[in-house]
Each structure stands twice: as structure tokens, then as C-alpha cells.
């Protein structure tokens, strides 16, 4: 069935076939999370169900609310100390995993890659951990006096034993005279990391955003912010340069390489630029309502989408900015054309399957298309209706769209659709590599990056080429398949 283009009927049949092994109830449930794309559809909720509890018994790669808050939204704010409040494991096993690059001296004025935890023991569960929490915050203040504030990232037990972290936070704010933010992101809340993003946004709204409302600010008509860029491998930096070249002033970037002061100054902006819609739309909507700041989603993957987004952003400003924007696009034209000329012949016609998080399942499609590649399947770990609404138009007709895909389904889809490249995460990587299929991690950029902006596109193209056209893949064969072949060879010669 590895024809280049499947018909909608073929894709539907494929879904049915893969679902066949499930018991009746599971089949019914999972069927709702899989769809055949049809660009005519306006509302995804009619075709695909999302943001539901994962089915017990299947392999899911989702994370928890704590991961969404500590790992994604708050963690990269570099000049604050984020306490993983609860047992040590949740923080230690996820420490520094997302490569949110930042400038600063770790342990002195920045704390991004460090792990702070209250290291709960049995007695803390039995007698409560409030005293311990206020003690460690005072210790933090003594050991790391240049921190600008502290957040308390609750792990599961905190919610279960009912500690009053809000009261401790208020008291400590008075003691240390710095913002102390309690975040109720216990892992059991919600069905995935997604609710953690929301809870983290709400904490920013309630404890941070208004801190400087009455302070004077030297504003310009060109003040914008970057929201929802986590600076993975330097992504926010290669985005920021483009905005600055347009003549805009970036007064804040969250949370990659971000600071508390930048968050507090965000309400002074004229326009909020939103990269990861899924994780930061809540706070953008709030600022639009409270401060009247419009927000704009943008996509800086690949030259086509970059130019589209730059022009879109420029349309909020005067003719000078618009003219600058054209100059920026022109300035990089030779550079990105050279990238396309070099790599497109090596990648043209190759088919990609994606399964990622927040925005990438739809945002990177354009970058692949710029290189002549086609995305034949895509899906979100923790997307919602509004994400799928935005995906349907980006994907070709009759392609596969899957929500919270299970380990089994993903493998089966890959076996039958036979993509030339898979882009997903660390949990999928080695399975597919052992199957001999070229694979790129599309969360961490496989320790490469940045991929955003024109500079990032060059790296993206190189990485896809070096992975896909690597001669190793034809040499990878798992032992049981080799034996099979030998047996058939023996049988044939007998």
C-alpha cells in the first residue's frame, strides 16, 4: 500500500485495519481519534476527538500537568528559581531535558538547568511539607541572592495532602520581597501536559502580569513580544533577529531565555506575537481582553511561512515597517534559495510522518514542502479542537491525522504508509531507527537547531538530508529478520 498518494477510501481502510486488533470498546474509542483529512472540513470536532483521557492499557507518550508547567511554561524563565515541590524524581528525571538555551551564569544569576526540589520524604507526606517549603525558600534566598523570584511547581502529592502553598507563597513574598508564585500544576490534573500549560498561564495572570502596571515605561510604537518560543537550540534568537531587522523592538520573550521583568513588562507591548498557540494562547487572550493588546499567531519554519508571517506581522504597523519587511525577505532570498537548490534535489518527493506536541505537527509542514517533501501523516500528543481546526487546511487531502496515537497504532501506520522519514520524540526514536527508518527528534531537534527563521531553515534542511540520505539505514536489520532471510535462503537452496 505504499503508493505515493492514498485515496481517502484507502486511508480509511487502513485505519479500520489497524483498529481491528482492539477489543470492541477500545476500537470505538480510538476510532474517534483518527481521521482521514479533508480540507473542506471547517470544524475538526466533527471528525476527530481530542484532549480526552488516554485509554488505559495502551502506550501513550503524553506527559503530566507538572511537565506542562515546570517543564514548558515556567522552567525556562531563567532568573527565577523553580522549585519542584514534592518528591525528587519528577524534577530530576526531566532536568535540562528541553535545551532551552539562555544567556547568563548558571547558579549565579540564572538557574535554568538546575534542579531545585523539596525532596519529599514519608514524614513530609504524613505531617505536611509547608514548613519545609518556607525553609528552603529562605535558604534559596541566602544561597542564590540574585534570583528574581521563586515559583512553586506542585507535584502530585502536594494536591493529595492538601498543603497550603498559596499561604506560604504570600508569607515568603513578604519575607524576601520578591514574587513567589504558587502553581497548582499537580501531575494528576487534566489528561496531559496541556492543562499544565493552562494552569501555568493562569498563575502568570494572577501573580505576575500586573506587577508593573503602574510603572512608567519608555515605550515605542514598535514594541512587540515573542510569546511561546522556548528557545530550543536557540529558536527564539533566530526569530528575534528577523523582527528586529524589520524595525520592531522585542521588549519581552517568553519563556525561552526569558526573565521575570520581561513577563511583567509584556502588558506594555503593542502586539503580542504568539508562536506556540497551544501553550500560551490563554495568556494572550487575557492580555487582549484586559489590556487591549492584539495577538498574532506566526510560523517561522521555512521561507514560505516565514515570509507570510513577516508580512502578516508588518500589516499591524506603518509603511516603514512594511517596507523594511520586504527588504528583510529580499536580504535572505539568495541565502535560502541556495539552501533549497542544494537540498531539494536530494529530498524531493520524500514522504514524512510527524507526531509531536504543541504547534509543530502543523507548523513544520511548510518547511518540508519548501524542500519538496510531503507530510503524509501528522498528529498531536495533547492537541485540542482548535489545533486540529488549524491543521486540516495545512495537510493534504486523504492524509492521516491522529490524536494521542498509541505506540501500536503509530508503528502499524508507519509499516503500511512507509514514510521516508519520521519526526517525533525520544520515546519513538529507537523503535523506528531499529526498524531501519530515518528518524529525527522534532521536540529537541535531535540536539541540533535552531530551526526557526532563515538561519534555522538552513540547519533544518541539512539535518533532514543527513538523516534521510544517510547510508546506514539500508544496513540496519534486526536479528530476527536476518534469521528469517537466512532460513528462506537455506530453504531455497535445499
Amino acid at each position, binding site marked *: 500500500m505504499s503508493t505515493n498518494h492514498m485515496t481517502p477510501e484507502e486511508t480509511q481502510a487502513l485505519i479500520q485495519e489497524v483498529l481491528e486488533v482492539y477489543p470492541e470498546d477500545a476500537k470505538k474509542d480510538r476510532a474517534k481519534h483518527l481521521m482521514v483529512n479533508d480540507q473542506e472540513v471547517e*470544524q475538526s*470536532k466533527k471528525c476527530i476527538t481530542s484532549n480526552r483521557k488516554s485509554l488505559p492499557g495502551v502506550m501513550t507518550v503524553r506527559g503530566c500537568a507538572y511537565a506542562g508547567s515546570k517543564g514548558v511554561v515556567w522552567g525556562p524563565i531563567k532568573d527565577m528559581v523553580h522549585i519542584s515541590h514534592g518528591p525528587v524524581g519528577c524534577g530530576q528525571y526531566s532536568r535540562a531535558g528541553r535545551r532551552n538555551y539562555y544567556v547568563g551564569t548558571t547558579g549565579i544569576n540564572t538557574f535554568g538547568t538546575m534542579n531545585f526540589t523539596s525532596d519529599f520524604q514519608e514524614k513530609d507526606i504524613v505531617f505536611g511539607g509547608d514548613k519545609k517549603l518556607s525553609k528552603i525558600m529562605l535558604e534559596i534566598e541566602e544561597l542564590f541572592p540574585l534570583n528574581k523570584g521563586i515559583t512553586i511547581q506542585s507535584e502530585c502529592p502536594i494536591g493529595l495532602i492538601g498543603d497550603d502553598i498559596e499561604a506560604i507563597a504570600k508569607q515568603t513574598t513578604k519575607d524576601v520581597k520578591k514574587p513567589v508564585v504558587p502553581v497548582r500544576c499537580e501531575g494528576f490534573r487534566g489528561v496531559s501536559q496541556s492543562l499544565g500549560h493552562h494552569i501555568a498561564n493562569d498563575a502568570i495572570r494572577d501573580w505576575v502580569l500586573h506587577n508593573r502596571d503602574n510603572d512608567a515605561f519608555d515605550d515605542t510604537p514598535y514594541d512587540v513580544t515573542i510569546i511561546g518560543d522556548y528557545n530550543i537550540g536557540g529558536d527564539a534568537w533566530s526569530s528575534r533577529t528577523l523582527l528586529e531587522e524589520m524595525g520592531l523592538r522585542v521588549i519581552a520573550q517568553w519563556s525561552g531565555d526569558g526573565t521575570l521583568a520581561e513577563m511583567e513588562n509584556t502588558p506594555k507591548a503593542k502586539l503580542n506575537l504568539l508562536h506556540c498557540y497551544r501553550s500560551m494562547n490563554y495568556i494572550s*487572550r487575557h492580555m*487582549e*481582553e484586559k489590556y487591549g493588546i492584539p495577538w498574532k499567531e506566526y510560523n517561522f519554519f521555512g521561507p514560505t511561512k516565514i515570509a507570510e508571517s513577516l508580512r502578516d506581522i508588518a500589516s499591524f504597523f506603518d509603511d516603514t515597517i512594511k517596507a523594511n519587511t520586504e527588504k528583510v525577505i529580499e536580504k535572505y532570498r539568495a541565502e535560502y534559495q541556495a539552501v533549497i537548490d542544494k537540498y531539494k534535489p536530494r529530498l524531493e518527493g520524500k514522504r514524512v510522518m510527524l507526531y509531536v506536541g504543541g504547534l509543530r505537527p502543523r507548523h513544520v509542514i511548510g518547511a518540508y514542502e519548501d524542500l519538496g517533501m510531503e507530510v503524509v501523516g501528522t498528529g498531536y500528543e495533547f492537541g485540542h*479542537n*482548535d489545533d486540529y481546526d488549524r491543521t486540516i487546511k495545512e495537510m493534504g487531502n486523504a492524509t492521516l491525522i491522529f490524536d494521542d496515537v498509541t505506540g501500536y497504532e503509530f508503528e502499524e501506520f508507519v509499516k503500511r504508509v512507509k514514510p521516508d522519514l519520521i519526526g517525533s520524540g525520544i520515546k519513538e526514536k529507537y523503535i523506528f531507527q531499529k526498524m531501519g527508518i530515518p528518524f529525527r527528534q522534532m521536540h529537541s531537534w535531535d540536539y541540533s537547531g535552531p530551526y526557526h527563521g532563515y538561519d534555522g531553515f538552513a540547519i533544518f534542511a541539512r539535518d533532514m538530508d543527513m538523516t534521510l540520505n544517510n547510508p546506514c539505514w539500508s544496513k540496519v536489520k534486526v536479528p530476527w529478520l536476518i534469521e528469517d532471510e537466512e532460513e528462506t535462503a537455506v530453504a531455497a537452496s535445499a
Partner: protein
Amino acid sequence: MPNVMIRIKDNGALLFYIAKKDQEDEIATVEKDTDDEWGGKIELTDGSEYYIDPITPRPSFPTTLRFKRA
């Protein structure tokens, strides 16, 4: 009785956003929509209907309002 944030979309239409459900739908018709009154029965493009007692004067968007299912 969902809390709904109403904002103006890029295309000028009003967007009906239910945060609880992450549902974004365009408003198709509003029963009363003048400078000094806004509300009544509201129909979304997906056909579902909501109701809000008319507000005077017309609120400025974005704003969060409480609707009833009609």
C-alpha cells in the same frame, strides 16, 4: 451556562470562544446587534444556539460574557 470570550477575528467576524472546551466558533447571527443593544439569541456557524440577555450599550470586544444554551 458557559463563560464565553468573544473576540474579533482577523476576518472581522466575532469569535465565540469557550475556554473550558477550547472551542472556537464563529458567530453566524446575533438577534439584536445595534449600537445600543447586543445579545438575545445567538447562532454559531456550526448551528448551535446560545442566549444572553441583551446588553446595553453594545460591549466592546474582546470581552467575557456568560451565555445560556438556547
